């Protein structure tokens, strides 16, 4: 899902305490939001509204929630004037058989005291995607493909913007360059290299979506196949004949019968 170009202000629509059905997914989204935050900086849930869409055995919740940041208590880091900040967040939470998965998180700061918060944001507040996750884009170290703990989450969250922000385009080009070196890729022309870069960027978005929808512990990201389109990968490395009925074989005896 695309990150908003600008943080949003709370709309005039009435907000109510979370309904019982929205409460569990909202609390889960809150828990995910607070994961990794120090005790004094965790936000609390304000109002919640949303809708639910039933999908098979699961439910997809689209939530909007206000989250309140605690007032700053550390005089060495507090900005003046001290004010309590409110975040307006959109979450998508999938609940499948009671297990929650956060599919999307998209937050922006809202100064509830000032009308026209969007203008205030445009005037200097950072974008939400930069303020969440493990760091800012500018603080990301040079990507290293051999680092298995490497995640591109802060990069991914901006990849849906079109066109890519300049600094992100540079960062992706850098990741792609490392990919080319690591996997010893050569392209026939500048045009092909450019095309492969665009495929690579598109694939990073796909990998992020696959990551978001994985319920195990797997990590997805750059691999030696990252410059191939889905079609190229399928036709080159996979085996469509496996979908055809095979030769009937005898049923093996189970181990107990052996």
């Amino acid at each position, binding site marked *: 899902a695309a990150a908003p170009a600008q943080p949003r202000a709370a709309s005039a629509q009435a907000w109510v305490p979370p309904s019982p059905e929205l409460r569990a997914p909202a609390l889960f989204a809150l828990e995910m939001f607070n994961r990794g935050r120090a005790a004094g900086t965790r936000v609390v849930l304000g109002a919640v509204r949303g809708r639910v869409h039933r999908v*098979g055995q699961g439910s997809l919740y689209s939530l909007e929630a206000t989250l309140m940041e605690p007032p700053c208590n550390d005089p060495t880091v507090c900005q003046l004037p001290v004010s309590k900040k409110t975040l307006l967040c959109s979450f998508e939470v*999938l609940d*499948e058989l009671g297990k929650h998965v956060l599919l999307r998180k998209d937050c922006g700061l809202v100064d509830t005291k000032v009308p026209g918060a969007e203008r205030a944001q445009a005037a200097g507040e950072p974008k939400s995607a930069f303020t969440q996750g493990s760091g800012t884009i500018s603080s990301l170290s040079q990507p290293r493909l051999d680092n*298995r703990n490497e995640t591109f989450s802060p990069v991914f969250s901006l990849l849906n913007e079109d066109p890519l922000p300049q600094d992100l385009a540079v960062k992706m080009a850098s990741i792609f360059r490392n990919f080319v070196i690591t*996997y010893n890729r050569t392209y026939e022309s500048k045009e092909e290299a450019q095309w492969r870069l665009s495929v690579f960027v598109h*694939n990073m978005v*796909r*990998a992020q979506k*696959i990551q978001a*929808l*994985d*319920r*195990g*512990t*797997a*990590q*997805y*990201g*750059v*691999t*030696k*196949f*990252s410059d*191939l389109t*889905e079609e190229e*990968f*399928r*036709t*080159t*490395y*996979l*085996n*469509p*004949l*496996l*979908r*055809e009925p*095979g*030769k*009937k*074989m*005898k*049923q*093996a005896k*189970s*181990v*107990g019968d*052996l």
Partner: protein
Amino acid sequence: APPEWDWRSKGAVTKVKDQGMCGSCWAFSVTGNVEGQWFLNQGTLLSLSEQELLDCDKIDKACMGGLPSSAYSAIKNLGGLETEDDYSYRGHMQACNFSPEKAKVYINDSVELSQNEQKLAAWLAKRGPISVAINAFGMQFYRHGISRPLRPLCSPWLIDHAVLLVGYGNRSDVPFWAIKNSWGTDWGEKGYYYLHRGSGACGVNTMASSAVVD
């Protein structure tokens, strides 16, 4: 089934191979299984030839794909498999160059295994690595960890990749199958893929089979 099992640590599994730009996973899955069966029945681990299957199995389609069930038949009808050294991998179809006198292993039959993952685990622990086919959703970008895509995204009906189950266990209470892939050691966890066990993830239980060596 024992709580965990790994044929790699028992010497039944050859090193990870690389199918290159060729849809020959079916050949690697089957030779991996025959390597394990031969080891368990004859006590010797031999790295066997996939190229022989690409060139000489006329039912399957070499780099365009194939089925383990017909590959077992081809091995049986040809009279066995040569070793990797004698008939090395080229990654494209060539004229069949199989010599019966060079065949180092044979198989007597092949069997289809249960779709029950608990029974599969028990079979694996007792009888050796298993050829399976899976839906390869997400594998293009897999790096490490236990994969468990949402079921609708990784349907058991859309099987498109053959691999080899070599073990199973739990990591932090998450049950997994250890899967030997054929995309080289620079993919996944040193060439291995870990898939959730017990949920029919990506159809792992739908096409399990093995050669029989008497």
